[in-house]
């Protein structure tokens, strides 16, 4: 009986902790979030097929819009990056691909490595259209 009470108390404590920490911290760009040089140098294998950016848009709307907004300009409440900014667009295709694949778990950006590799490159293709 004592064990049961202790376990129930532990369960409730965990729920309270979860409720307390589930808020995202304020977004600030993370200077430590840099793709390794070999990853940043990778070129987009779909670069010569710009028509695939349409599929990239669909994937963006499915996976990214929640934090970056439908127009990719970021959401204040999510403290997420505006993907139109030169600081983003100046990054290489390889660097964007690496960031999509790895995420930045400490700063609220999940990893999307479960998306097939070619589809991640399609997202990069679409991100480039935001610059135009």
């Amino acid at each position, binding site marked *: 009986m004592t*064990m*049961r009470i202790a*376990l129930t108390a*532990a*369960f409730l404590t*965990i729920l309270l902790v*979860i409720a307390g*920490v*589930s*808020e*995202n911290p304020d977004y600030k760009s993370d200077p430590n979030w840099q793709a390794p040089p070999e990853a940043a140098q990778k070129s987009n294998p779909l670069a010569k097929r710009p028509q*695939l950016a*349409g*599929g*990239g*848009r*669909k*994937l963006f*709307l*499915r*996976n990214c*819009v*929640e934090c970056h907004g439908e127009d990719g300009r970021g959401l204040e*409440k999510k403290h997420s990056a505006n993907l139109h900014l030169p600081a983003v667009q100046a990054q290489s295709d390889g660097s964007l691909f690496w960031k999509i*694949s*790895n*995420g*930045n*778990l*400490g700063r*609220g*950006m*999940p*990893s*999307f*490595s*479960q*998306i*097939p*590799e*070619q*589809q991640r490159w*399609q997202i990069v293709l679409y991100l480039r259209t935001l610059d135009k």
Partner: protein
Amino acid sequence: MLLLLATTALAQEAPYFVTYDHHLEEPGNLEVSIANTGGLARADQRTYFAPYIELEYGTKTWWTSELYLEWQSRLGDSAIFTGWRFENRFRPLSREHWINPVLYLEYENINEASRIQKEIVGNAREIGVPNAELRQTAAHELETKLILSSNTHNWNISENFIVEKNLSEEEGFEFGYSIGVSRPLATLASASNCRFCRENFVAGVELYGGLGSSLGFGLHDTAHYIAPVISWQVSDNSSIHFSPSIGITHGSDPLLIRFSYTYEVRDFGSKMASLFGRR
């Protein structure tokens, strides 16, 4: 109310029922799954249905919490509530690696009638006893898993090593495993919002079973299954998973039919917070 709160977003998921990969729920999202494990029992026993509800919440990018509520019904017997489980998964490494570990910790407050079989541990169980009797035996269990998962060339390969301790009875530590391999049927996305195109399907296979306990480690008298799995992303925020699991040892049920429907509620945490006056 959930439907009012819901918008899009369900990242492509592994199709497994038993095996976990290293991908966690996105922070603030709530994934609601309604699932069933149907068991075609051995000759002298009764076919059963074990429906359950999974509520999976992304607490942080590196931490996912999940609550299970489960039931069981057997042909010619009663239908009963078999208990609840609360699990947490933690991803200790911040970057993708060749092998990505996740630590899993679960508390189970169930009874011996539980048949959802989200994991198989220890030795094969006798299920010829009526539900009325089984429900009297409570099982308070702690379960840990080491989840190892890799994504390579569009394949996901995941291995789970399971250790379970029943706090209510002296059964020693029970062990189990599961292994899953899966791949999407197409790796390029079309621009159209098609429902039946190949990119919306992920197929694979799972192998899982018990490895005995600290009182008798090994494969003797254990249950093992091989299970083709397939998932279909029906829309941006819902998916259907299906798996026929085939028992491959004497201690296994001949066939388990698993089915689930999953619906993801985006930004659930923030919506709930604002509902209660927090910005």
